[in-house]
């Protein structure tokens, strides 16, 4: 063999031959006899094969060590996150939404706890059988339920907010406990049905408010969802509850509205009567207390039942009181006259030549419904003379008319606590022309929501001070209780307009149908041609309105009814269509408010409980 290497520990270890063959002299009896034979190669010829095999193994071991280091050091971050992500779930716990009350504390919207049924598809062995049983119990489609079970793993809502009968039927199935469960959820309930539906809005399955107060006070009403961390295994079973990171859900707070459910009911009954009598496309009504700007009732037709929103009729979602705009027509006239007096453009004792029904302004000829000669200022309003108003307009000039419309809040939202309020249309002064001088005083060339119109009139009824309408009852302490106020005309002018011309309108003018036997009513009629969606006039349809209040000396209630595009009857004058409804509302509401239960308005509660 080869000469033995030097007896050095290091070289001994490094010599590969020592790994596979002992270099020390062979043991007795094991001398390789084969070396003598030329046919047999010496076994050392095959050393390299052992070196190759063992070397491959060693290299493989080093590669694996590298791979492990890569996975456990370099990629540790990502894998670690993944391990947490697949086992830790953050679950939201639902807060109970706050109740909504009317001004007397009557419940308008509340939440009840219901059970929602979920299943864990991955634990279901006989999907088709389970799907069939559940579908029968809950009246669902068997095939689509099966599809849903097949396409989910850990969690599937079968049906949310079960009724009591459904719950009983499901429990009677006696399904294996690990495949199903019930989770408590809150269902919004509106105990008074469709009453004030447009004001209240809706709260959906997930606790989100849509429309109305429910949307406007979402944060306040909804509360704060809680959170908890669950550690679960691959089959979705909860192993551990991480209580250190648990945040309790905070329930929503209640809210008290200025609405009075009784007045609201009175108003809605009248609107329904108008709907069936005249078959209009829609109508709306608002009742408010002019002294405080608090809205006692607001209703719109067509309406829907918030307990069954799926059955809502076409257009039923729209709250016409704040989102339908139309030209006010004659109803605006008292406001123009009041501001003309305020601007000293006219005097109370003046009279106007009404030209016997025909008056040319530039290239335009104005007409009155009846021919009048000279009319006093009061009679211009009582007879609702367009020519008389046009002459007042000429006195005020466009700038004065513009000032008047702005002063009464037209062209901008009133700021009521509801989503979706429209600002109406008030064109900038530089777009006005000679036509405007005649059109604006009779309520054309500008458009507004019913709410804007009644809030403008409330300024007169409130002795000349315009104030922001409100829907949430003031608590008596916070800064937000002070509403925006603005004096528009002197109380002397305002009171005169209400007590003289507007009272005369009902006594002997266009609004006689609003007369009440036991109460003095003031008011103003209005009729304007309806607008097409393109903005031009429709000759066959009218928007009729009547605004009335009582008593004239110190108005406690102001009511506006607007009827949109009445389809029946030849003359849709506001006096004919809307005035009787307003009269009925005023009578019943004031009787109720004067009666025992109605101390609510006279001695206003500092704080009406609940909070």
């Amino acid at each position, binding site marked *: 063999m080869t000469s033995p290497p030097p007896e050095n520990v290091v070289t001994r270890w490094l010599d590969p031959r020592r*790994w*596979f063959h002992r270099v020390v002299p*062979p043991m007795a009896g*094991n001398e390789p006899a084969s070396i003598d034979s030329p046919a047999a190669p010496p076994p050392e010829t095959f050393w390299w094969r052992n070196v190759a095999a063992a070397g491959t193994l060693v290299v493989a071991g080093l590669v694996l060590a590298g791979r492990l*280091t890569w996975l456990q050091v370099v990629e540790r971050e990502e894998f670690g996150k993944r391990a947490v992500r697949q086992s830790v779930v953050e679950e939201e716990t639902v807060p109970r939404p706050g109740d909504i009350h009317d001004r007397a504390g009557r419940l308008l919207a509340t939440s009840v706890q219901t059970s929602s049924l979920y299943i864990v598809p991955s634990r279901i062995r006989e999907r088709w059988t389970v799907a069939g049983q559940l579908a029968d119990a809950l009246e669902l489609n068997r095939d689509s339920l099966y599809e849903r079970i097949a396409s989910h793993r850990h969690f599937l809502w079968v049906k949310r907010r079960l009724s009591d009968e459904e719950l009983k039927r499901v429990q009677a199935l006696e399904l294996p406990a690990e495949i199903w469960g019930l989770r408590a959820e809150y269902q919004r309930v509106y105990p008074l049905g469709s009453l004030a539906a447009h004001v209240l809005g809706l709260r959906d399955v997930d606790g989100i408010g849509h429309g109305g107060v429910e949307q406007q006070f979402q944060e306040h009403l909804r509360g704060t969802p809680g959170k908890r961390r669950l550690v679960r*295994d691959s089959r979705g079973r909860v192993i551990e509850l991480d209580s250190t990171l648990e945040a309790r859900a905070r329930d929503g707070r209640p809210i008290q509205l200025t609405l009075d459910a009784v007045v609201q009911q009175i108003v809605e009954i009248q609107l329904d009567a108008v709907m069936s009598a005249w078959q209009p496309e829609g109508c709306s009504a608002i009742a408010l207390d002019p002294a405080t700007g608090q809205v006692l009732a607001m209703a719109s037709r067509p309406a829907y039942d918030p307990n069954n929103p799926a059955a809502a009729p076409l257009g039923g979602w729209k709250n016409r009181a704040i989102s339908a705009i139309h030209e006010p027509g004659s109803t605006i006239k008292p406001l123009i006259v009041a501001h003309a007096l305020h601007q000293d453009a006219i005097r109370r004792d003046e009279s106007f030549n009404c030209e016997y029904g025909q008056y040319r302004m530039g290239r335009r000829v104005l007409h009155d419904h009846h021919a009048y000669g000279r009319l006093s200022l009061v009679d211009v309003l009582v007879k609702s003379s367009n020519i008389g108003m046009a002459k007042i307009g000429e006195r005020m000039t466009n700038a004065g008319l513009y000032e008047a419309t702005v002063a009464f809040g037209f062209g901008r939202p009133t700021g009521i606590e509801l989503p979706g309020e429209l600002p109406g249309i008030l064109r900038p002064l530089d777009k006005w022309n000679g036509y405007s001088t005649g059109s604006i005083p009779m309520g054309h060339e500008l458009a507004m929501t019913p709410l804007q119109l009644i809030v403008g009139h409330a300024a007169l009824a409130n002795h000349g001070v315009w104030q922001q309408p409100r829907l949430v009852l003031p608590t008596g302490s916070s800064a937000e209780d002070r509403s925006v106020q603005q004096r528009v005309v002197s109380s002397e002018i305002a009171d005169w307009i209400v007590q003289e011309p507007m009272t005369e309108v009902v006594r002997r003018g266009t609004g006689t149908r609003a007369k009440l036997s036991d109460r003095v009513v003031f008011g103003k009629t209005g009729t304007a041609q309806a607008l097409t969606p393109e903005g031009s006039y429709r000759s066959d349809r009218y928007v009729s309105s009547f605004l009335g209040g009582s008593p004239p000396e110190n108005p406690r209630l102001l009511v506006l009814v607007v009827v949109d595009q009445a389809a029946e009857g030849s003359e849709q004058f506001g006096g004919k269509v809307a005035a009787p409804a307003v009269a009925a509302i005023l009578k019943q509401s004031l009787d109720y408010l004067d009666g025992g239960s109605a101390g609510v308005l006279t001695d206003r509660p500092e704080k009406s409980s609940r909070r």
Partner: protein
Amino acid sequence: MTTTLDWERNAFLSCACLLAGLGLLMVHSASMTSWPSEYERVYVTRHAVYLGLGILGATAAARISPNRWRSLAPWLYVLTWLLLLAVLVPGIGTKVNGAQRWLRWGQFSFQPSELAKLALPLYLAMLSIPRDETIGRATRSPWLVLPIAFLAPLILVEPDLGTTLFVCAGGALTLWVVGWPLRHFLTFSAVLFPAVAAMLVLKPYQRERLMDFARMWSDWSEAPYQLKQSLVTLGAGGVFGVGLGKGSQKLSFLPESNTDFVVAVIGEELGLVGTLGLLGLWGALYIAGLRLLAKLPFGSFRYVAGFVLLTQLVGQAFVNVAVVTGMVPTKGIPHPLVSYGGSNLVVNLLSLGVFWSLARPTDNTTWNSSGFVPSAVVEPARSA
């Protein structure tokens, strides 16, 4: 009498014991489930019983002389072959998940294909190397491929592709070490590769598995569920691990956490320290084993069989780690000595015992509690 063999022997035995002990510990930890059950106790008890059986078997195997092993080799081979045949007979073999691999007696089951890992190398080495000769005079007939060809199809049809490949690799390694001509290797590769390729094309489930594996390299989140969980489990451990018993992946996310993927659990609980330590133990065992072999006449039956059994054992450990780290697509290869597993653990311990017997300093020494003791022939004094 203290010889220079002492440290290698001690190191070899220490590594084997450490690996088996780590296995017992990790099987206990990895058998925990997310829901209270008695599985952890059931598994660890069975594992301990198998471990005991295996140690008894290894001790007995170590006491048998190398020459006796040489003469037993054909009988062992025939026994294995018959058992493999028996597995395939309906009513005798037990079918689990569509694969017929087990023989079962009551509580205990046995997988004959594991025995093939021991029988085949011994038989091939015995066939090629004449008694009292070395590979210098070895038979290099192409017919040496027949023992492999008789055995492999029986495992393949169970079906168990992973074990088939592993047994074939063991046979090929034996032929390689005895100096089988390279041209034979080339010839049989030329025959086998098309056959394997054809099988992959014909068996959609194997092909799908390969495709999944290939996809994983571009985006690991595309990996098959089990492999993905294995990588996540390893990675979550980091350098020092989350602590023994504290791993969460084994509770439910990682399938086969106490058998084929027990190394992933080691990775999560003991970290890189644990996994590299495991590789280190195997490395140390291999080096100690090679040092023991180096004292034997090069190319003798004892040398060749010992080398193949040792390399095969360490190789299985590495293949398992490669599977767990997503480098090799095969499945069904447990980690020797560490994974829970009845017959695999027993056969692996048995082959350690056989190695211990083959690695005796001379043919005529026997083993007792104080070491190798020459029974008939005294080793000639080296100083002379």
